[in-house]
């Protein structure tokens, strides 16, 4: 029987079981790396470095995980904070790496042209709106969970999601017809 995230966290806490932590990393690496790739606008190497740091930081601070939120929400928060720190240090916004982005996406599900425009439209959103849209609309977090991750009031998350979606809708209007 497969252990739940909470069960694996308990093993890490009680037995210092690094194999259990490895299983948690395996389960969540795709979503965390995916989020960071979008936040860094397609800078895969930087996103993976940040994801690695986030997972190591999560392990070191796992005692502060109280199980009030889902483990993935807690992890997203650490990853987002790590991204913010890095972005603050760089004080620069990197342009989207479209070639690499398109090369690594699965061409079966979404029209490549639409994907390109979608990613480009996302990259044009200001960070606060992009983060809220990515967490709520793409990664399926509730507004409340996104508010925990982003450490902002619930109302602000709702506003950011609304504004972000409106902007995306306008930019992609031609595709929606």
């Amino acid at each position, binding site marked *: 029987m497969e252990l739940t995230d909470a069960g694996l966290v308990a093993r890490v806490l009680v037995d210092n079981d690094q194999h259990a932590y490895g299983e948690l990393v395996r389960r969540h690496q795709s979503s965390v790396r995916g989020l960071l790739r979008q936040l860094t606008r397609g800078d895969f190497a930087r996103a993976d470095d940040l994801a690695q740091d986030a997972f190591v930081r999560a392990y070191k601070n796992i005692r502060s995980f109280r199980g009030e939120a889902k483990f993935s929400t807690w992890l997203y928060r650490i990853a987002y904070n790590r991204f913010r720190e890095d972005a603050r240090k760089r004080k620069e916004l990197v342009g989207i790496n479209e070639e690499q982005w398109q090369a690594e996406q699965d061409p079966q599900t979404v029209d490549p042209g639409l994907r390109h425009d979608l990613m480009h439209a996302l990259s044009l959103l200001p960070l606060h709106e992009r983060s809220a849209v990515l967490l709520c*609309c793409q990664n399926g977090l509730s507004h409340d969970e996104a508010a925990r991750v982003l450490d902002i009031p619930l109302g602000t998350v709702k506003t950011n999601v609304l504004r972000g979606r409106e902007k995306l809708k306008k930019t992609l209007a031609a595709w929606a017809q």
Partner: protein
Amino acid sequence: MNEQTELDWLDRKLQEAVSYIEDAGFTARVLEQLPAPQLRWQFLRPLILVGASALASALTYVLSDGGRFLVVEMFKVSTIPTLWVVAFALASGMLVMAGGIFVAMSKTNQLQS
């Protein structure tokens, strides 16, 4: 398309745009960077208990004049009438047997449930 349908379409496309990222050694790299597990207090617990017991025994031995009270008590036991010793042994045996039966029954109940 009406507004709600457009937003639903947008959410769907956003979700579809997410593809699974293969691990490709990522987890292994994270595990390599984790700090080595520290020696935890639970490994020290038996050592502390054994050490404290040894210290207490040594103190008792010294304070009781080399365990002299043991000799005295053994002498007292040897003067107890044989009938009393037999009765005491029988009572102890029955007590242990009752305990054993109780544990066996509770284990059986656990296994059955």
